[in-house]
């Protein structure tokens, strides 16, 4: 995978993008853009981004896009594809939108087996609002609202999203957790997830472990270390549910 | 003069209060009149007292609820309590006297003797009932007319217990005096037609019940 050529589905006029240096979003959107290119669905895809850092992607793609908030990107996409089932809806959001304020939408959309893809970027904090605790903040992790480190006994353990979604979806759902430290794998997950939606088969959900050096207050080396060691040890990367049609071998 | 009538009916859930009200309103509509029916749809919807309000008039009806009814009907003791506020000095008050024992005399002390059961506290409250006040077992004697219709007994002995509410329907129609029997029968047909199809005897039974109710009110109004 080349890192110099932009995917066709990207809008070159809005690049360089607006994310912080070292942010994981750009990598996620690259893998997503390439997956869209590979299965050639740019003309049928509708992209929705949420509140928080994900909203900076509102003009990212050469794809009709809308920005909303509070994890409501999911019902907006559901509304669109229910009204026009020929469209492929992608709801793009952070861990706050998907697992906290809009958790009911993720849970119920998954349960209804809506034909949409939800991409949830997990960077263990609320980035745009200044680095507060997220549902995914690791035990002991320092954030603006857990200045002495997250106490799991007080504030709960990090949300295991794909595990949750996999448990409540039907067998035609596709559920995976990828990471920006393995973009080849991530792109593969996105392709399977999008194909699952394209085929009208079922709900697709991909959580992506991503970096946030600005709020982690880490240098390049420590950023990567936090992602690959701390996060990956808690959040297991891999496929959690693969519909029968997508199973290999 | 514009014709108009305001009707309030109260009974126990399952007594068919809402379906009578519905038929009356539909009959009004059948005649090309303005008709407005609103059920009491509060918590009472599940068990408890069911109340229905119907208004029929020649022109657009005002508020769906009103203060005093022209015809007010109570089909149980609890319903009397609930509906008394709607009884005014021009009201014809109809109750099922096979279910509710209400003294026929308005003398306060003598009247109390005919109560089915009287708790001491009801006695002390009940001696001087004025308009606006009410008591569980007291008749609203300030009404224009108070007419007991033994609908339950008539239905049980002469027809079928199921048509009890149609006897009441007949009584209301006659007391209201605004609708033709024809349109009421049409509305009954619309409401109950499918049941009549299954059981043709039911049609005649219902028509008889309607007539009994009408007759009871006719007699009572002549007597007074």
């Amino acid at each position, binding site marked *: 995978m080349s890192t110099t050529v932009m995917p*066709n*589905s990207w*809008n070159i006029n809005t690049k360089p993008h607006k994310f912080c240096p070292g942010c994981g979003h750009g990598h996620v959107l690259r893998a997503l853009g390439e997956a869209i290119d590979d299965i050639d669905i*740019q*003309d*049928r895809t*509708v992209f929705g981004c949420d*509140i928080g850092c994900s*909203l900076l992607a*509102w*003009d990212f*793609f*050469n*794809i*009709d*896009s*809308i*920005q*909303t*908030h*509070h994890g*409501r990107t*999911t*019902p*907006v*996409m*559901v*509304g*669109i*594809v*229910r*009204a*026009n089932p*020929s*469209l492929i809806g992608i709801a793009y959001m952070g861990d706050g939108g998907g697992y906290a304020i809009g958790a*009911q*939408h993720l*849970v*119920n959309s998954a349960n209804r087996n809506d034909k949409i893809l939800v991409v949830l970027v997990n960077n263990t904090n609320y980035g745009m609002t200044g680095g507060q605790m997220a549902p995914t903040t690791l035990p002991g992790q320092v954030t603006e609202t857990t200045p002495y480190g997250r106490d799991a006994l007080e504030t709960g353990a990090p949300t295991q999203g794909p595990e949750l979604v996999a448990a409540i979806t039907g067998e035609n759902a596709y559920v995976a957790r990828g990471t920006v430290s393995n973009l080849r794998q991530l792109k593969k997950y996105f392709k399977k997830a999008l194909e699952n939606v394209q085929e009208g088969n079922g709900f697709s959900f991909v959580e992506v472990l991503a970096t946030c050096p600005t709020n982690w207050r880490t240098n390049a080396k420590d950023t990567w270390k936090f992602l690959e060691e701390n996060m990956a040890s808690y959040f297991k990367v891999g496929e959690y549910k693969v519909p029968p049609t997508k199973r290999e071998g | 003069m514009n014709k108009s009538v305001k009707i309030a009916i109260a009974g126990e859930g399952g007594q068919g209060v809402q379906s009578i009200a*519905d038929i009356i*309103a*539909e009959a009004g*509509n059948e005649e090309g009149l*303005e*008709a*407005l*029916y*609103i*059920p009491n*749809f*509060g918590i009472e919807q599940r068990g408890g007292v069911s109340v229905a309000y119907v208004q029929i008039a020649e022109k*657009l*009806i*005002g*508020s*769906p*609820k*009103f*203060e*005093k009814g022209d015809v007010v009907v109570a089909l149980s003791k609890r319903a009397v309590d609930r509906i008394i506020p709607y009884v005014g000095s021009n009201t014809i008050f109809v109750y099922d006297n096979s279910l509710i024992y209400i003294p026929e005399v308005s003398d306060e002390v003598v009247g109390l003797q005919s109560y089915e059961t009287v708790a001491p506290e009801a006695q002390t409250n009940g001696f001087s009932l004025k308009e606006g006040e009410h008591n569980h077992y007291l008749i609203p004697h300030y009404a224009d007319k108070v007419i007991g219709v033994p609908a339950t007994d008539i239905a049980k002995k002469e027809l079928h217990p199921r048509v009890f509410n149609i006897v009441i329907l007949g009584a209301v129609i006659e007391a209201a005096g605004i609708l033709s029997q024809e349109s009421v029968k049409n509305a009954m047909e619309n409401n109950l037609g499918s049941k009549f199809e299954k059981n043709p005897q039911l049609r005649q039974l219902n028509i008889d019940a309607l007539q009994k109710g009408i007759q009871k009110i006719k007699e009572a109004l002549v007597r007074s």
Partner: protein
Amino acid sequence: MEKPIQEEKRVFMTGNEVVAWGALAAQADIMYGYPITPQNEIMHYWTRLAPKYGKSFLQTEDELSAGFATIGGVLAGKRSFSATAGPGNTLFQEPISMAEMMRIPMVVAIQQRGGPSTATVIYSQQEVNMTTYGGNGEGLRIVYSTATHQELFDYTIKAFNNAWKYRFPAFILGDGYQAKMREPLIMYNPEEKGIEMVKPDVSLGKEGVPGKDRDPVYLRNAYSMEEELFEVLMPMIEEYNKVSPEIEEHFSLGCEDADLIIVSHGIVSRAAMAAEEELRKEGIKVGLFRPITLRPFPEGAIREICKSTPNILIVESANGQLARLVKEALFGLPINMQAIFKPGVGITSEEIIKFIKSKKTEEIIAK
């Protein structure tokens, strides 16, 4: 596929059923709904009618989702609607704010119930504040307060048309009484009556490859700078103000020679109308002013009337929610105002008559 209402016909039904038929007559495509009393039967009737006429329905997980999914339906180019009440309307303010900001013509029928919070499932006029100015916005909405079943039908059709014509969210503001009561009305096919149905258009998922055959559509809802937002909002507000006179509607009765004007809206105005007639018979010169649109408020019309008759009696089943709109509209005029506020409780003509008669002439009629 069956065609909805072709010929005019007189029907006798509940208000909730009327709204479902009105949406069908307005050629609505899809409803997204969540149960709450007293609007439930709108969904019940819609779900029964929908398959016969090729329409869709989705029961969502809450009113937030119902509102946002309705927005999605609109973006896909379909006439989309929802219905709600009370605490559901509270949740709806979030999607409605977005619809306001992004000029999304969503349509919502609201059957007001008692408030605050859960309160009663029965009736009120306490959702006026919320429906006209709720959410974090400027109230760029169209709100029709209906009084009869005929109006529920007429204004459901109009709400769809004016939402799509002006691209502001539109509301049919009914109440629990209207929802549950039955009365006659005439149903019709609007096109047979010469009402031109405004065609919906697709916002997202248009023809062609974005970036190649056409520019991509970016619907933005967040701005980085104050000035950026201001530049977006001001033309929107100016446009709303400009089209307001076209949208505003009111009804007035006997105001020309009246000493006192009763101001009420929705179903309460029926009691006011009956009171007006009764009082006139007794030689008391009373008029009635009823705003049909609560947003935009028919300010010009009420100011004109109150210039010659400065005595008003505001009657509403809320603690001054209509009064606030009226006072704002009449700002600067010398007004003598009386009020009957009965939050969450129905009002009869008898009460209005009693109130007016209980007052000394000089109390209600300032000369």
